[in-house]
């Protein structure tokens, strides 16, 4: 591990690699303006310590964003070919059944993914600010090792900015990028994660050394007047000609932390109900469609789904199928079956969620009607003709959970067209888009068939 000290990420000015003469010639022929640019960095705060503080925050929090993102992919049920992107080759996640308990599982993992991701934007920008002089360094590299490391930094920085940009645009319904969000965000995350692992493995020793160089607790007591530049470092993060401080280090950290809290406060409302929802002032889900019992958000309107009111009127029938057994029930027949009420969240990939009280028929009771007590999976189809989410496959645990319902009513009133009238699926901890609305049929696969 000690050998790190002489690597490009090490503490001593690295020597030139092969071909030595070539690298040296590059170093000795800087383009005009490099000297001016080097002296233009003025902030006395830049240095390994501040970079390491921001780095440490990201080191602790980014894995949470990465893991919750992967859990989201898993929650979509890749085993049934309904997680996007479909075909992820070697980057496949282990096949596990997504649990139905706790019922708030997806609400929390996805809310955390989005909210934390947004809260980290200021930290990422601050971290980039702290190291940006490196971008304009001359020579740009002294060896092949440094060239490669710079290229992985392109993957690292490009990766995080790409994930932030696509994520922010997706959760605000502005698909300016013109490519498939799932494909881009999933594979972009892997590129970023791989570059992050390499970066952390190389830089962790520096982070530890830098943080030890001035104990955090003591540094947090230093005001602006007492703020001094760090001693010159081999990486050249510390300015060659620093100006007077306009802010202390603790001030800079408090500023970034404060911005993070501000963004969090403007985001978390989309995962809360009641008056709190309106605190998401600038987000689509800060809006409540109306104040009535069905005035909670939807992820697709009946109009957008192309639902013909004629198909959801008295002529509507729910078709249940298991093997060669078929039953067709109208809404009155469904309402005559034992009704169960459950308080369950609807949670979306965009991070918003809402907790509501649903009433309807247990899915396992419907399975029993066609003799599929030993259900293995259920394929739910919507009246919606087109659209990625006009069908969903539920695993056995999702059909059999006592709170898994074909909901007919919500908060004591009938469903509205936008909420899936005449009937919709609601399953604990299942992503909202798989809680199929405007259900036309459910086909049960039997375990022993």
């Amino acid at each position, binding site marked *: 591990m000690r050998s790190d000290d002489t690597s490009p990420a090490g503490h001593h000015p690295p020597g030139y690699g092969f071909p030595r003469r070539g690298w040296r010639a590059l170093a000795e022929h800087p383009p005009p303006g490099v000297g001016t640019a080097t002296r233009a960095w003025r902030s006395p705060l830049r240095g390994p310590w501040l970079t390491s503080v921001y780095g440490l925050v990201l080191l602790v929090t980014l894995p949470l964003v990465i893991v919750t993102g992967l859990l989201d992919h898993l929650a979509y049920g890749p085993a049934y070919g309904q997680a996007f992107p479909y075909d992820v080759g070697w980057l496949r996640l282990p096949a596990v059944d997504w649990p139905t308990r706790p019922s708030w599982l997806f609400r929390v993992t996805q809310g955390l993914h989005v909210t934390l991701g947004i809260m980290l934007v200021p930290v990422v920008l601050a971290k980039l600010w702290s190291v940006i002089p490196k971008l304009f360094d001359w020579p740009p590299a002294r060896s092949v090792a440094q060239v490669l490391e710079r290229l992985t930094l392109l993957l690292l920085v490009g990766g995080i900015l790409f994930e932030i940009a696509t994520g922010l645009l997706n959760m605000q319904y502005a698909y300016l990028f*013109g490519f498939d969000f799932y494909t881009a965000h999933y594979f972009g995350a892997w590129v970023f994660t791989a570059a992050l692992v390499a970066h952390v493995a190389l830089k962790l020793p520096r982070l530890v050394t830098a943080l030890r160089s001035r104990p955090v607790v003591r540094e947090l007591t230093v005001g602006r007047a007492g703020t001094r530049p760090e001693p010159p470092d081999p990486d050249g993060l510390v300015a060659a000609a620093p100006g007077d401080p306009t802010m202390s280090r603790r001030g800079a950290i408090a500023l970034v932390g404060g911005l993070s809290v501000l963004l969090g406060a403007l985001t978390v409302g989309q995962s809360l109900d009641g008056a709190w929802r309106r605190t998401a002032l600038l987000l689509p889900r800060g809006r409540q469609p109306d104040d009535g019992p069905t005035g909670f958000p939807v992820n697709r309107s009946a109009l957008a789904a192309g639902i013909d009111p004629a198909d959801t009127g008295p002529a509507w029938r729910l078709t249940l199928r298991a093997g060669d057994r078929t039953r067709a029930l109208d809404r009155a027949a469904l309402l005559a079956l034992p009704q169960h009420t459950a308080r369950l969240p609807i949670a979306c990939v965009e991070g918003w969620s809402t907790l509501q009280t649903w009433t309807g028929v247990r899915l396992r009771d419907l399975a029993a009607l066609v003799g599929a007590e030993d259900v293995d999976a259920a394929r739910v189809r919507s009246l919606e003709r087109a659209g990625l989410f006009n069908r969903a496959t539920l695993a056995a645990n999702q059909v059999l959970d006592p709170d898994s319902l074909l909901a007919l009513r919500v908060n004591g009133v009938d469903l509205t067209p936008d909420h899936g009238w005449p009937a919709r699926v609601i399953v604990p901890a299942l992503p909202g888009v798989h809680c199929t609305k405007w259900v036309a049929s459910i086909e049960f696969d039997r375990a022993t068939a």
Partner: protein
Amino acid sequence: MRAGYGAPLRHLLLMAGAFAVAGWVLARIAGEPTAGRMLLWFVGAVIAHDLVLFPVYATADRALRARLAAPARGPSPLNHVRVPALAAGLIFLVYLPGVLGLGRDTYRAATGLEREPLLGRWLLLTAALFLASGLLYALRRWRAHHLRRV
């Protein structure tokens, strides 16, 4: 190894790992008709940050510092302008689609509601941030003045 490559073998292995994943992903999405756009956004994000966003905010900050020289006595107004400006700028960037009302059709399909640009809200938020910061500055000035007299 070290003399030629410029780092220990471990370094090369870590680099190879990162490139292997990136290369594999690239090969994977190469067949997508929109692969070029994805690549453009990936590289474009770096360029937009490093060569547009950073120079813009650094230049703005430099201009601000030149105008708001620290007074001989009392608190400097610099950070009382900087902080709300930074917060307002960040909010604008993060919630850009909402502030400008972008993606009306997808918004309507998803929510069943019409998207109205929330520029007014953002301006109010910005005004509130500057106001709070200005009040704090007035308070600090008053205190500095008061304490000097006492």
